[in-house]
Structures are given as C-alpha cells and as structure tokens.
C-alpha cells in the first residue's frame, strides 16, 4: 500500500474520532474489510501494544501502520495521530481572547469543576482493572498523597511504583 494512501486512511480514522479507541471501527472497515492489508488478529495486537506502553491509547494507530508497511508505515501512523491535534489552536486563540468577560470566566470555571469530575469518573474503570490487592491499593493511595501533599517530582512517583510492582512480582 502506498504510504500517502496509508497516511490519508489513518488520518481519516483519527480526524473522525474524538477519543482513544473510537477510530477503531473506521480502521477496521478501511484496512481490514475494504483493503485487506491488515488482519483482525493484527488489529487486536496493535490495540494491546498501544495499551502496554506509556502514552495515549491512540498510539495503537502507530502499531497499525507498522503492521501494514513496517517502520515507514509506523511513521505515517504517527503523523496521522499528530495532525488533528493542531486544530485546537484556533479554538484556544478565539476563546483565550474572550476570557476577560465574566460569563466566559464563569463558563471556564464550570468546565474546570466538570473536568475534575471527569478525571474522577475515568479513574473508576482504571481502578477496577488495576487496584486488585493491598499492594496496588497502597501504590494508588501513596501516589495520591505524594502528589497532593508534597512537591515531589512525578517521575519519582512513577519510578517508585514500577519498582514496587517489580518487587511484589519477585517476592
């Protein structure tokens, strides 16, 4: 498959989705069903690989590109993932310029409160999947306390969590 065509097909999938894995049906339709350049098994492995590493789940698009055309295909996936992000800037410019108005300030504060609710809500499925015993519960609690009560660098919290997990797996 031509690299430009691959980029455009992946871009079509990313630009029509609004979060993580909602681009999946488009990719499945275009690459698995229509063009036959990707298998269902590969698509599943791509989603799993995207979740196994750090970063957004949307990175599975990079893995899809890799399955289709190797490393150059992965680069196309990366570009397709990055391209729509810049659409936010005109919106930020427009609203940022109006932020002196009381109504807009009130709206932004409302959004901030809703965003906090959203963060708590998206914690729940993650907690069900990852907080299963005393060790993982302790890690979640300690990271919450360290990140609210101290100014400790977040890198140390992540390193400490990985270390604790390794230790628990060894013991």
């Amino acid at each position: 498959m031509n690299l430009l065509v691959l980029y455009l097909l992946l871009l079509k999938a990313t630009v029509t989705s609004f979060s993580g894995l909602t681009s999946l049906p488009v990719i499945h339709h275009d690459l698995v069903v229509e063009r036959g350049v990707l298998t269902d098994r590969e698509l599943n492995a791509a989603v799993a690989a995207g979740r196994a590493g750090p970063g957004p789940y949307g990175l599975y698009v990079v893995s899809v590109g890799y399955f289709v055309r190797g490393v150059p295909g992965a680069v196309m996936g990366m570009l397709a993932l990055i391209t729509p992000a810049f659409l936010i800037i005109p919106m930020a410019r427009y609203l940022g310029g109006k932020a002196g108005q009381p109504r807009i300030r009130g709206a932004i504060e409302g959004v901030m409160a809703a965003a906090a609710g959203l963060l708590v809500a998206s914690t729940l499925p993650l907690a069900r999947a990852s907080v299963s015993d005393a060790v993982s519960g302790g890690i979640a609690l300690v990271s919450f306390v360290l990140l609210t009560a101290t100014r400790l660098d977040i890198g140390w919290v992540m390193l400490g969590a990985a270390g604790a997990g390794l230790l628990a797996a060894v013991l």
Partner: protein
Amino acid sequence: MPAVSFRELGWIFLRIGNLTYGGGDPIMAAFQRELVARRRWLTAERYALAFALARVTPGTNVLAFCAAVGWFLRGWPGALVAVPAATVPSGALVIALTALYEELQAMRLAAGAIGSLLAAAVGMMLAAAWNLLRPRLVAGNRLRIAVLAVGALVLLVGFSSSPLLVLGLGALAGALWGVPSPERELREPA
C-alpha cells in the same frame, strides 16, 4: 512571568508524555501537577480551557491538549515542539512492543511493573482532580464548585452521560451561576 525556554518546554513534554501509563487522562492529570501546581507556567483557567477544548478537537485528546499548552507557553513553535516531544518516544516504544508483543505477555515481571504504574495513575488522576478544585473552594464559591464537580461526577457515573455533554453543561452552569472567583489572566501568549 518569563518565557519558558524551548529546551525546558521540550523536556517537560518528553518526560510527562512518555512516562505516564493508563492512556490520555493520566497524562493530562500529570500535566496539571507539573505545569499548574509545581511550576506555575499555566493558570488553572488555561489548563481547564485546554482540557475542555481537547475533548472537542478531533483525534487523540491528549495530543490536542499538548498542542494547546505548547501554544499557550510559546505560540506555534511551542506547539510544534510539545506534540512530537510527547509522542515520538512512546510511539517508538509501541513499535518495539508490537514486534515483541507475544514474548512480553508471558513475562510476569513486566506485567507486575505495568500493573503498578496503572495503580499509580489512579492516584495521580484523583490527585489532579483535587488539585484543580482545592484553590477554588474558597468562602462564597465553595458550594458552587462542589455542586458543579459532584454534579458532573453523578452524570458521568450514574447516568453514563457523554464527557462532551458534561463539559458543556459545566460551562453553561458556570456561566449562569455567578462568577465569584478573583480576577485571572487568560490572554494569548506574549
């Protein structure tokens, strides 16, 4: 506030974007702490604006978030530094994980470390929610903020409302229900 250098900007996006497990939301939570609470490069209002707009921008939310924050800090060049810094290393790692996927699945050690990183991400997101709300919970504004945040949570968890709808309702309720918080700045980058 002095302009953030491109080196500092690239480094922070490199670190936060590629160290955080559990998808896009924990990354945005980590940025709340690093950019708003610790370094004060970003006001809570700009953070909230980037967070909300990222949801309505097509594509992966957290990348749009990084573009907006990079733009707030250093304009277009800032956005062009921030987005690749936050994605290229973990993208390269995804390629490696794709190639090694079957082998890794069998490794108990890797599974243990990843499980703990996800558990830490749970604590991190709760911390970000609290850090966002805490400075707003001042006399006269406490009820408003608490009702808006708890209302959002109830809609999301109890009624499975779409995040977009909840953010929209939050904006509407926030605009209609007074503005008691102190003056803030939310202008374009210098």
